[in-house]
């Protein structure tokens, strides 16, 4: 893969330690604009910890993170989110007590365009903006086929619908970079391949950049332009998906005793 494109996200020498446990060690990776990059590795390799460092939920002891040409290492999570860094969660980032519409409107938090105080005082502009946000949310829900359940509380919906709502929220937040934590978990193999189409569409039509953690090897092989392999908090190897699947270290560490499943 060409690596000359502009780097949207760059992590440089991340080191994260919890007490005596070295979770991440000298981890560097770059995500070029407009690409889908995979982050794979066995359980406990530090993939989700890596996401937590990139989004600012964990503060790594060493290393820097830069996003969209600016050093965000010291920015708190919500400030990074406002720069256009959106993530999804392994066990879904939906808020159970809110309805589907409200969840999507929550994802639009940063572009509500009015202050919290103006909102609770019922200032004139906020009513209008709320209506606009609701309309935008309805469009997004239409696109994702969620219009029928728009008024239902998320807690009362089946897993697949909740997952779709999660994805709708990710897009509603108007991201530049999507960090997807196991988007195919809980999906059937067919649904996972359907997800591949969705991800490619996001990249090509909405010009989104995606970094995703994924265990589902066919999906990674299908959509990723580039793959990083993590093991014991270190970078094992990196390369195109074809290359990675043939790499002996990867097969040993990740796929077990030499049976590549893909």
């Amino acid at each position, binding site marked *: 893969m060409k690596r000359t494109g502009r780097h949207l996200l760059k992590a440089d020498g991340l080191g994260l330690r919890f007490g005596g446990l070295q979770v991440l060690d000298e981890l560097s990776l770059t995500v070029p604009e407009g690409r889908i990059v995979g982050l794979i590795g066995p359980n406990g390799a530090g993939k989700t910890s890596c996401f937590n460092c990139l989004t600012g939920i964990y503060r790594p002891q060493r290393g820097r993170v830069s996003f969209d040409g600016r050093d965000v290492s010291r920015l708190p999570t*919500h400030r990074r989110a406002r720069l256009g860094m959106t993530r999804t969660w392994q066990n879904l980032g939906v808020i159970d007590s809110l309805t589907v519409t409200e969840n999507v409107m*929550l994802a639009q938090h940063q572009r509500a365009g009015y202050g919290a105080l103006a*909102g609770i005082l019922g200032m004139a502009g906020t009513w209008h903006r709320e209506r606009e946000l609701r309309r935008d949310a309805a469009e997004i829900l239409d696109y994702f086929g969620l219009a029928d359940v728009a008024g239902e509380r998320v807690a009362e919906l089946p897993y697949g619908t909740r997952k779709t709502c999660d994805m709708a929220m990710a897009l509603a937040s108007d991201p530049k970079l999507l960090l997807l934590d196991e988007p195919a978990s809980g999906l059937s193999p067919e649904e996972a391949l359907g997800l591949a189409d969705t991800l490619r569409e996001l990249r090509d039509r909405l010009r989104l950049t995606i970094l995703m953690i994924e265990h589902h090897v066919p999906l990674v092989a299908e959509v990723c332009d580039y793959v990083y392999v993590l093991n014991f908090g270190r970078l094992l190897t990196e390369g195109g998906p074809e290359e990675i699947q043939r790499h002996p270290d990867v097969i040993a560490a990740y796929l077990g005793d030499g049976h590549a499943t893909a």
Partner: protein
Amino acid sequence: MTTATLVLTRVRIRGRLGLVLRVVLVLAALALVAYPLFYGGDVWAQRISRAAIYAVIGLSINTLTGHAGQISLGHQAFVGIGAFSAAFMASQLAAPLGFGLAAAALAGTVTALLVGMVALRVTGLYLTLVTLAFGLTAETTIFNWREFTGGGAGAFAPRPALVETDFAYAVLCLGVLALVLYVDWRLVSTKTGRALAAVRNNEDIAATLGVNVTGYKLGAFCFSGLVAGLAGGLFAYWNQVVQALDFEFQVALVWVLMTVVGGLRSRLGVIIASSFFALLPLTLPNFLSGLPWQPPFLNEAVYHVLPPFIVVVMLLLVLRFFPGGIGQLLAPVTRRGGPKGAKR
């Protein structure tokens, strides 16, 4: 848990019938207040003021615990500091009522801001302990500060001529309650409510959606303190004298419990439970001792310790049978959306 009440909450009443029911409910509530207010004389006007003040306190706790998911067992300190500030303004500076109430709200906000900045570094049980410790400390320090609180005799807060009658004062209290209700409604209907829902469910998810978690938690603390201080100010002018023993730890506990019994995030539920708990100690002993038949060994002294006992029993009933509180029982009528009761 298949009791009749639970089955009832699963019923969804839709469309025009639902709207009519809601209107009827609100009108019934208004009539319930208006009748004793106009025909009950001063006694009932005072009681309605007290109920409204409790409801404002309940909504204050609802903001913090219901919306933001934080707990405070030191609310008597916020209310008490508000009450003493209002009394100080009224008696020492002879300031008009508006200034007294503003000072009460400001004092509540500033106190909550200071406590919040310390308390929000910890979560869960530790937050509860910090607020509890703060409340108890405030009782023994600030409330015993003679120049500010007037010592054991208390601080006086005479009402100005405009609201001197109990009727006028009740109208003022109801007006403040209406204002707080409006703000609570707007809070839930705008991005603030959604952000707080995210904060109370999962702070990490909230932060990755761009919500300033610390800011919102501190904001909720401050707003809760503001409303609590305001309620304290109303209490000061209602009682016209403020004493430290009005704000002992036990009342803070009752306030938290009444909010839970009313149902977190249910405005109507909180108002009903707050009014009930405000009036119970005033009405129950008289009512029981006025009954023609008195059971043996019971007398008026016993009736006076009944209300806290009733509070606890109600809490147990609520936790066991309808964790959404009174608000859950009202859900079929008040809720617009889904079919199920008030669950998190």
